[in-house]
């Protein structure tokens, strides 16, 4: 029933979690890529810069040689050798450095013979035939022969070669002439050395100040030519020093020449590390590349640097995956936590609902019970202020609960009881009392109309929030009290009215029997004696009934005193002697060895109990059997026991024995006499002495009826006076 509300936050959390994880992934990926791009850009820039710097260093070298030529009157072959050798040795990229004079046809022979005289006997201007063989140069207006050459070794084939005979070289020469500035050729295959390696020829014009020239223009007399092997130049570039991360392990550098028609021509390519050779121009497998423009002399080159840094499928590295993984984990944890919280909340809500429902129903039913209970219910706090008052209480006292709640409980007490009851309340609020503090206490109450009401009050103390609250449950016993009073008066009257004629009957019979005995026949005497005996029994019955009613009403009063147990027993013994003699019973007494064993009790009532036990024993004993009264003590009680040799009482009758009008055999009543009230009254008397009364069968088949009362102590006396 609560599942839908549960799902909304969780699905929201799932969606948000996925969204955020994706964003984290994308973000981190982007950042990583940016970072790597930045690094790669940096590497690229640096490589291009290094390359440009390197190649321009070569150009500078060439320019400085050209300047030397321009300033010197004449540079012979040996001068050239000494000047150039240390320079080309400085860079491995130079295949050769050459002097190219511009030689008009008419000066050809002069230059050829000059070279021969320098020690090159076969020197002549040469060119390449279409078949690829070197042949003497054809007749031309002007020649651009390789005249000085260093190092000679390895470049022998180039000496005397007319550069103007080959188009690529010639166009570079023409460029240099036109601009009077350094010009580089497109990559060419060399005619000497390793032909496969691409090289560029850089022509630096040598322009002497022409004193004689009318336009005062510098006249270009020749060129300093640098043959630069581009692959060797690339060899000198190392990306290692620019690589900061572990990425870009494999880098490819490719050099292109930009053409005028926006296309480009591949020059050379290089892989790092070197052993990882890839086919030239195949840069497709690289996932990142940068192009830098390089200006060199009059040429524009492109250096393309490529790398494959993607080590993982479509990811720059594992960081985004890792970050989004953490994010997903975080959200999974969050969602799991959320689910558990929601479930807990759900359960708690369900429990709360159930509890609330059951609380409401239990509170309602409790309220209904309290309101409809037949007894009045009042609760007061320890100051005596009334806190609740149910409808029965309203009926009993005539106050409504609205009127009475918040007032002091004394409003319900008759004036004469107020001080007594407030004292009682003070006593109650003392700590250390039992929770149920009073049961069945009869108190007077004051109704709203000023009349009195008798109530039977039970008071208990409960603690709510550490505050004691007294709960009083009471019922109106005014009617009951009235009835009781009527009954007591009735019994008192009846017993009086019964006694008066009984007095006459017994008196008359007694006088006849005792004073006129001789005048009657035996039969008459027997009848008279039967009549007397029964009139006595009737008297006893009236006494017992009266006692009983007094006991029931709690009105049997006791005059307690400190008594000597032996004295009580002796008195009982003496009172029973006559009765025993009449029934031919041998009555004996066994006193307690300690003659000062004291008890606390009403002598008359205790003797009544003793007399009852003795008369029972005598009545139910066979003739000429002994009956004994004995005083003993066990711990803190004194026991009075009467032993007889009668039939005893069956165990099955034990429970009924002390009840009213009970005799073991109902026929006994007539045979033995007695009212059947004696033991019941005795038990009530003994209970009023905080003792007990019972019987047992001795091993020698005697019946022993006994009662116990506590040994006297001052405490007991004090307690009873309270």
């Amino acid at each position, binding site marked *: 029933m609560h599942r839908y509300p549960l799902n909304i936050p969780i699905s929201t959390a799932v969606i948000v979690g996925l969204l955020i994880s994706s964003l984290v992934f994308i973000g981190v990926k982007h950042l990583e890529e940016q970072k790597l791009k930045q690094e790669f850009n940096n590497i690229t820039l640096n490589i291009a810069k290094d390359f440009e710097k390197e190649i321009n260093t070569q150009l500078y070298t060439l320019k400085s040689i050209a300047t030397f030529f321009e300033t010197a009157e004449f540079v012979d072959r040996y001068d050239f050798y000494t000047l150039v050798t240390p320079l080309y040795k400085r860079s491995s990229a130079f295949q050769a450095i050459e002097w190219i004079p511009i030689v008009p046809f008419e000066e050809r022979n002069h230059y050829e013979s000059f070279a021969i005289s320098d020690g090159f006997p076969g020197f002549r201007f040469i060119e390449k035939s279409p078949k690829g063989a070197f042949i003497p140069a054809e007749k031309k207006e002007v020649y651009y022969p390789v005249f000085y050459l260093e190092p000679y070794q390895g470049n022998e084939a180039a000496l005397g070669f007319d550069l103007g005979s080959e188009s690529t070289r010639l166009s570079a020469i023409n460029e240099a002439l036109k601009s009077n500035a350094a010009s580089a050729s497109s990559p060419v295959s060399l005619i000497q050395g390793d032909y496969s390696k691409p090289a560029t020829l850089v022509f630096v014009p040598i322009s002497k100040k022409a004193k004689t020239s009318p336009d005062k223009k510098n006249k270009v007399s020749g060129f300093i030519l640098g043959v630069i092997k581009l692959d060797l130049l690339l060899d000198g570039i190392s990306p290692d020093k620019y690589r900061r991360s572990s990425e870009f392990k494999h880098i490819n550098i490719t050099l292109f020449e930009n053409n005028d028609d926006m296309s480009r021509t591949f020059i050379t390519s290089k892989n790092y590390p070197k052993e990882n050779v890839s086919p030239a121009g195949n840069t497709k497998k690289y996932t990142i590349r940068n192009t830098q423009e390089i200006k060199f002399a009059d040429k524009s080159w492109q250096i393309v640097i490529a790398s494959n840094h993607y080590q993982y499928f479509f990811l720059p590295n594992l960081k985004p995956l890792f970050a989004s993984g953490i994010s997903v984990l975080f959200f999974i944890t969050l969602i799991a936590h959320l689910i558990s919280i929601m479930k807990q909340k759900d359960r708690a809500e369900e429990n709360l609902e159930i509890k609330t429902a059951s609380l409401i129903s239990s509170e309602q039913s409790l309220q209904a019970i309290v309101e409809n209970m037949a007894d009045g219910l009042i609760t007061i706090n320890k100051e005596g202020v009334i806190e609740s008052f149910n409808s029965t209480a309203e009926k009993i006292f005539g106050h409504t609960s609205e009127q009475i709640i918040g007032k002091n409980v004394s409003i319900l007490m008759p004036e004469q009881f107020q001080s007594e009851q407030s004292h009682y309340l003070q006593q109650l609020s003392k700590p250390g009392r039992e929770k149920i503090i009073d049961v069945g206490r009869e108190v007077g109450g004051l109704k709203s109309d000023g009349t009195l009401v008798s109530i039977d009050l039970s008071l208990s103390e409960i603690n709510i929030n550490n505050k004691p609250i007294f709960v009083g449950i009471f019922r109106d016993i005014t009617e009951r009290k009235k009835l009781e009073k009527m009954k007591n008066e009735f019994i008192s009257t009846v017993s009086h009215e019964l006694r008066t004629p009984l007095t006459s009957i017994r008196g008359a019979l007694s006088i006849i029997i*005792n004073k006129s005995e001789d005048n009657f026949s035996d039969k008459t005497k027997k009848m008279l004696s039967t009549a007397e005996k029964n009139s006595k029994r009737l008297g006893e019955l009236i006494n017992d009934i009266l006692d009983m009613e007094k006991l029931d009403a709690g009105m049997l009063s006791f005059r307690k005193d400190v008594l000597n147990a032996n004295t009580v027993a002796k008195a009982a013994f003496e009172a029973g002697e006559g009765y025993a003699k009449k029934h031919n019973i041998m009555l004996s007494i066994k006193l307690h060895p300690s003659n000062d064993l004291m008890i606390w009790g009403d002598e008359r009532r205790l003797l009544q109990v003793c007399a009852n036990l003795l008369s029972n024993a005598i009545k139910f004993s066979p003739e000429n059997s002994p009956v004994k009264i004995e005083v003993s003590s066990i711990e803190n009680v004194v026991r009075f026991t009467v032993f007889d040799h009668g039939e005893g009482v069956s165990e099955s009758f034990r429970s009924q024995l002390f009840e009213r009008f009970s005799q073991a055999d109902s026929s006994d009543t007539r045979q033995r006499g007695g009212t059947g009230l004696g033991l019941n009254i005795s038990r009530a008397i003994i209970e009023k002495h905080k003792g007990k009364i019972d019987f047992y069968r001795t091993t020698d088949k005697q019946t022993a009826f006994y009662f116990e009362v506590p040994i006297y102590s001052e405490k007991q006396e004090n307690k009873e006076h309270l």
Partner: protein
Amino acid sequence: MSDNIRLLYVEDEEDILAIAECALEDEGFDLLFCSSGLEALEKAEAFSPDILLLDVMMSGMDGPTTLEKLRKIPHFENIPALFLTAKVQPQEVNALLALGAKKVISKPFDVMTLADQIKDAL
């Protein structure tokens, strides 16, 4: 004058009066039986009793009231008085003794010992 004890007995029950008369004859008493308190008050001074025996519950004037009035007669202040009653509860007995009675004899009484009980009170 004989040595007989002069007993004034007030009892409104004729039967009991008769029984008491029987029980006390030949026991050394000079008896004056009155059937009401008023009668006793009329005759008491002339009879000049040694001891008073009064029933408690009587129609008209009850025993305690009768005793109270008798006590007001000159020389009657200290005459021993006994009550004869069917009310035998301790508090009832105590109340009667508090009125100045020497003894309370309960009904039904033992006719054979009645005379001795009265004599004991003198």
